[in-house]
């Protein structure tokens, strides 16, 4: 592909052996390498935490697709991170049901305690705060997710506990669930 080599600003990094192995596995599922793009980005993000320009170029090169095409995929999905994120990403729902039950003030709470607005990362690189549109648990709103964990019927205390848990392993008080 022409523009892979054309790029003078960004140089592709080497993909790691694990990344290549998993991408190769995905390739067996699809007739066209384009189709593997999203999976490959997820694999890279799993190991690197986010998808840097160097990673994007590496994947494009590896799959022999144009970086422009892969960028279209990477930026379309909001869970592919094209900027560095903290170790834990807080996904706070700001859709209708959660909004009615006060997600705005919960966001204010997080911002006050962690010092980060939507889209920002704490100085110690521990947390990034992002809004998401509806986590599909409207009946238990307000809702947020950190990692694979979903926190429902959110309150300020619950948030504090969850954050403490990710900071230093303090167990979350089950009663609050």
């Amino acid at each position, binding site marked *: 592909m022409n523009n892979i080599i054309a790029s003078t600003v960004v140089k592709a990094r080497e993909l790691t052996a694990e990344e290549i192995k998993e991408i190769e596995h995905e390739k067996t599922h699809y007739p066209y390498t384009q189709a593997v793009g999203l999976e490959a980005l997820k694999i890279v993000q799993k190991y690197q935490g986010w998808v840097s320009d160097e990673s994007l170029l590496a994947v494009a090169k590896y799959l022999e697709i144009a970086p422009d095409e892969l960028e279209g995929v990477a930026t*379309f999905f909001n869970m592919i991170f094209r900027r560095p994120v903290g170790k834990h990403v807080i996904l706070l729902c700001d859709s209708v049901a959660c909004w009615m039950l006060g997600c705005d003030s919960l966001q204010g709470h997080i911002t006050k305690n962690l010092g980060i607005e939507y889209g920002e990362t704490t100085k110690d690189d521990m947390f990034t705060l992002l809004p998401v549109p509806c986590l599909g648990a409207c009946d238990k709103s307000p809702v947020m997710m950190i990692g694979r964990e979903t926190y429902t019927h959110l309150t300020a205390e619950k948030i504090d506990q969850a954050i403490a848990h990710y900071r230093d392993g303090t167990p979350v008080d089950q009663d609050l669930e």
Partner: protein
Amino acid sequence: MVKITVDGKVLEVDENNNLLEEVLSQGEDLPYFCWHPSMGSVGSCRQCAVIEYANDEDERGRLNMACMTSPREGGRYSIEKAGQFRAQAIESIMINHPHDCPVCEEGGECHLQDMTVMSGHTYRRYEGKKKTHTNQYLGPFINHEMNRCITCYRCVRYYNDYAGGTDFGPQASHDNTYFGRWQEGPLESEFSGNLAEVCPTGVFTDKPFGKQYVRKWDLQTAPSICTGCSVGCNTNPGERYGTLRRVVNRFNDEVNGYFLCDRGRFGTGYVNSDERITVSMTRASSDADPHLASPDEAMSQLHVMAVDAIGIGSPRASMEANFALRDLVGKDNFYAGVSANDLAMGQQILDIYRNRPVNVASIKVIEGSDAVIVLGEDVTNTAARIALALRQSVKNLGKKMARDMKLPDWHDAAVRQLTMDRKSPLFILSPHATRLDDVAANVHISSAEESARIGFAIANAIDSSAPAVKGLSKEEKSLVDTMADALKNAQQPLVVCGTGSFSPALIDAAANIATALQDGDKKANLAMVVPEANSLGLALLMNGSDQSLDQAMSLVADGDAKSAVVLENDLYRRAPADAVDSFVNALDNLAVLDSTQTRTGEAANLVIAAGTFAESSGTFINYEARAQHFYSVFKPKDSIRASVKWLSDQKLSEITAACASSITDCGGMANLTPGEDFNVAGMKVPRQQHRYSGRTAMRADINVHEPKQEQDEDGILSYSMEGVPATRDATVFNTAWSGGWNSNQSVFKFQSHTGGALKQASHGQCLIENNSKTKTWNEIEKDNAPEGDFAVFPLYHLFGSEELTARTPAIQEKATSAYIALNGDDAQKLGLQASDGVALEHNGSVPFIIRSSIKPGTVGVPVGLEGVNFRNLPDGIALEKASSWTAPEKWHAANIIASDRASSEGEA
């Protein structure tokens, strides 16, 4: 055809087209954004909504997108009733639109403006903050202003899907949707300029035009022909204050359709350049100081000199200019301004067009071909519009698959989904990788001689009466069979070749393949590319004579001619430099008529200021032998005149008529324009729009008296705003405009059917009629292996190889100076390091690049680039590392775009 009712009107429409296309064809005004006649429908903008009723009783109906609807027999539709929906759709589209029309270069010819007015959305209710974006640097041709985007996706569908670009795309989603490159940088497609016409708003605009901007209505325009190559795309250049401001596409359904290449669109800046010859100069002898010659003086000197001079014509001058020179010096003293080999190849092609049972392929025919073989011609760089057409030809398999499934072929997304990466076969034989390889079924790297042998063998495999070829390798044989089968089984096979390889044998091979494919009434299509805008015209004009530049040179060397008149020609581009040196030195008198300074002009003792295409009218004959008329766009100052005006005092139409009647096959030239007495309401057709501003004020800083309007004694157009502008009549199509349709989308008002031929304007006249059904063959010639370690093959650059366009600043930014290209192993053997130069026989030293596709023992040398004269080189050369060397300033390795992009090792 089916009968439908639209708002009570009964219309007869074609059910194979979509409803939008059909109602537009019937003259209705239905707004749209995302649909394009060349790209089909995707239904993304929701602007073409209509109400479709289920039956006669149905009174509510339902909303449907007209561009996604097949008209059905008895169908009842309403455009009117969906008006409110369309106004709402546009209101939502406009939420983020900046409304910066006064400072937007699209303003006044903006499809979004037109549609907004048409839909009735006149008052903005949204009071929130608008989304803004960062713009990108996209190179010297295209300006980017993302805030104006209405996310219709036309740009991506054009740039990626239609033109095959890969360095561009949509990013993100909803409010954040962004159209651009992954990283900023020059757009790589050779067809990027069309973005400015495809985008319905001001996101992508013509950058060089932006630097000398005026509104569309302030431009003086005329129908013209691009002189960038032998395709002869139709254009509408525009002028203001004596400078040529821009070039836009002029629709011609058989030639360029809706699209130009970037050489044609952005390559006319030389018209305004400092290198222009603006006054005639004369001197007593070639070592005396030149002094200014008034037009009268220049004229009389030229005509005195011409009495016993030979005339040297030019493939970049019009038929009329060449014919006038031929007339002036006498036909026996007229020489084609090209080498003997170039002239012979031109005549060889004419002979094939005349006598072989083939059909000469227009761009439209090329687009419709379902199996193609390209022999040695790098069309992307020598006749770019053909490359864009070939990119469409490979889609014909998909269209057929769709038709077989009863899926209309305008259903773009569905057809692409169905087709995936299946393509009609395209075979390429070339000494290097080319830009079309990504859509080719098979690319075979071979020299012109090898390709000719394979070509002859393919002809033989299709029709055994064609001469056979001995000694093919096993690999070559199976290749021959694959290609022969595919071509034989195609409905519309096409053979593309040309003079680019300088190989008559290759041209013969192509002719044999096309001949072999003839079967009763079925004829194969054949396209032969020639080097320049009027190369084939010049070959025609020679009327069988073989008087070439070589002959003129030996005549002068023998002392049989002492004076020469050279028409629009730099001989140093046609022959080895030392041969031209001795030629000009042996002459007592040399007159050169040209628009720009050249080395030949420097040697002359009479230099005459000739007009460019923009200041001249006449006829060019393209690669198909299609004659097309071009009108001057503006009148230059008095010291500059069109070449014909210097050479003859006859009217242009008289010269055209004389040429038409005295040159074989040129009869069709006489009918290209409406007669001289053509008028509308008793007046000539104005070159200026009726909104042209400042007519009385624009010269007030020089003189408050308004000068008399310039007269155009030649044509049916006037240099004026008086008269009746064409708004639906394309008899003289000097600009696309129709009431309510200020953008180029108004073209459909001039078409007999949307996307089809123009109502009145001719698409030019194909001069050669060929009814031959007899197969004749050329025998394969023995080739002599070139001497020297490296066999030389030519490389072409869309940006740089053509003489005049290369003098345009925007083109120079995309060009490079001379270099050579070779295989990595050879570079190693020669001991070359990245920053080394290579000594090139007769040419000094040049940088090198490595191209992995090139075979060992061969070397690519660019044609026409600054710092190298291809004509100086024999077929085979020795190469060695240059001893002391620094890379020239204009060497830009990054500008060499090829599918096996030059490795960075060659970068200095």
